[in-house]
């Protein structure tokens, strides 16, 4: 079935989106993605990432411009099960009486008959997708009784079970532990290598160069779009994030020459934790820590 499908692509053309209250969330947004890419959608909170996803899915009607998926209208693409969408966690009702298995099965509805009675094939795919995200041991669990990372993985399994060639993930890494994050990244890489298009929104900058081929930098419009190396420049990031990025400038910090290249930087995408030589803690600012700087200098000379 997929062999005859047109190659996936997302073509966002000059899209402007306004909410009912008149707030223009996106203005003149254009970019185009072709098969076999992971593209990051990067921007601060409120920059319009979720809004862009909803317009790509056709949930919000653009005031101007349009979206085409694999050369089709969004509605036609949806009917053909081309696009899978993993919503932001806040948008799910976690108290709903459905199990992990039920949710994975929902990914198959589009392939089922009028009464949505699962066939053996549907069960096999749902099972396989749960295994792929490492959640097959939790099939009977009610979805509210999962950790943040497990919840994300279940909805990822549902998206996989849909077998679309285009996947949109809204903030899949928020509230997720490091192992889950790298497991998800590995999975996305596999999908990319199989020719899928992955569009993933995030405000965690650190992981983007690690696994994203392209970046769309947004703040109510597209500030930059292209390969990661070209888009991820200091100027671009400064204009996208303004003053909200946390900085650790080595010159102003308590790090000194004697720390040399042994400096170790730990981060969970919040403020980095920096260890100097011999594993002592370093601080962002020298000011107010003159004592400490002197002590370290003495130690280094000794």
């Amino acid at each position, binding site marked *: 079935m997929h062999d005859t499908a047109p190659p996936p692509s997302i073509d966002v053309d000059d899209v402007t989106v306004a909410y009912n209250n008149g707030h223009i969330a996106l203005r003149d947004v254009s970019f185009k993605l072709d098969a076999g890419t992971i593209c990051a959608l990067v921007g601060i909170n409120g920059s319009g990432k979720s809004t862009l996803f909803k317009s790509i899915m*056709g*949930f919000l009607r653009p005031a101007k411009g349009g979206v085409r998926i694999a050369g089709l209208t969004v509605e036609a693409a949806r009917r053909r*099960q081309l696009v899978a969408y993993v919503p932001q966690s806040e948008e799910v009702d976690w108290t*709903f009486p459905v*199990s992990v298995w039920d949710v994975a099965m929902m990914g198959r*509805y*589009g392939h089922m008959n009028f009464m949505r009675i699962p066939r053996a094939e549907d069960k096999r795919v749902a099972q396989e997708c749960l295994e792929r995200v490492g959640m097959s041991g939790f099939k009977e669990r009610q979805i509210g009784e999962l950790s943040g990372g497990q919840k994300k993985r279940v909805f990822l399994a*549902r998206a996989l079970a849909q077998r679309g060639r285009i996947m949109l993930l809204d903030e899949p890494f928020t509230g997720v532990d490091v192992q889950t994050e790298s497991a998800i990244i590995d999975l996305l890489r596999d999908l990319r290598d199989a020719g899928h298009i992955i569009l993933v929104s995030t405000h965690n900058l650190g992981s983007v160069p690690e696994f994203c081929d392209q970046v769309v930098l947004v703040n109510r419009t597209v500030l930059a779009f292209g390969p990661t190396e070209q888009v991820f420049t200091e100027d671009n990031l400064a204009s996208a994030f303004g003053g909200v990025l946390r900085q650790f400038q080595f010159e102003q910090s308590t790090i000194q020459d004697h720390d040399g290249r042994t400096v170790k930087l730990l981060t969970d995408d919040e403020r980095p934790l920096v260890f100097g030589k011999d594993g002592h803690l370093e601080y962002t600012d020298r000011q107010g820590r003159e004592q400490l700087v002197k002590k370290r200098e003495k130690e280094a000379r000794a």
Partner: protein
Amino acid sequence: MTGLLAPFAYEYMVKAIVVSGLIGGVCAFLSCFITLKGWSLMGDALSHAVVPGVSLAWLLGLPFSVGAFVAGVLAALGMGWVKNNSRLREDAVIGVVFTSFFALGLLLLSLYPSNLNLRTIIFGNVLAISDPDILQVFVISALSTIVLGMKWRDLLLYCFDEGHARTLGMNTRFLHFLLLALLSATAVAALQTVGACLVVAMLVTPGATAYLLTDRFGKMLIIATITGVVCGVSGAYASYFLNGSTGGCIVVLQTLVFLVALVFAPKHGLLAARTQRRVAAIAS
């Protein structure tokens, strides 16, 4: 022994028991969707909004259920329209629209008295239900059961995650309308048993009870339906001995079951929560 079987000696009691059980079951099945979708208020609104339809149907010589159904759907569409085109919150919109319909219904019924009097519509009177009305109830129940039986998975997905339903190319506008239509239809059917005031209990309480007792939607449907049928049948039966309002008996019974579930539910009940807290305190 013959004392306990006494109600079955009267044809009107047998009819009342059967009709109450049937309506109780259908309403209860639907109540699972209504409570999870957060439409409890909507159910209350619709059951009052059908009243002018009853009167107009009488004036036009149509079966009362047709008029009531049309009025219910119109009210639902009206609420949707006002909500989308004003800045009012949903509860305010529901409040305004359904009281207008209800008021219009009261006015029409007082100006043009019909075969169904005001008391019957507001409080129900299943003991005096006529054979054509029983037929209407059967037809509505059968249609609702068939539609729900075929489409419950779609409706479940629509209630749980409308975005995903749309992602899969489902027609969510149709599903929304379908759920509203089912709600109006069952509200009409239940009108005769318990009356406009208490319909909402039939459309909410069994679902709420079942939700406390299970984490699986399939089981929730079964538990709710059984509760609905049992309460309908035994409520109507008990009303013979109590010599009280049938609707009142049914709804009080449903409420008692709900209270028992609220306290004793194995996982989500008040007692279970307390035990869990105690176990956690001992373990730590």
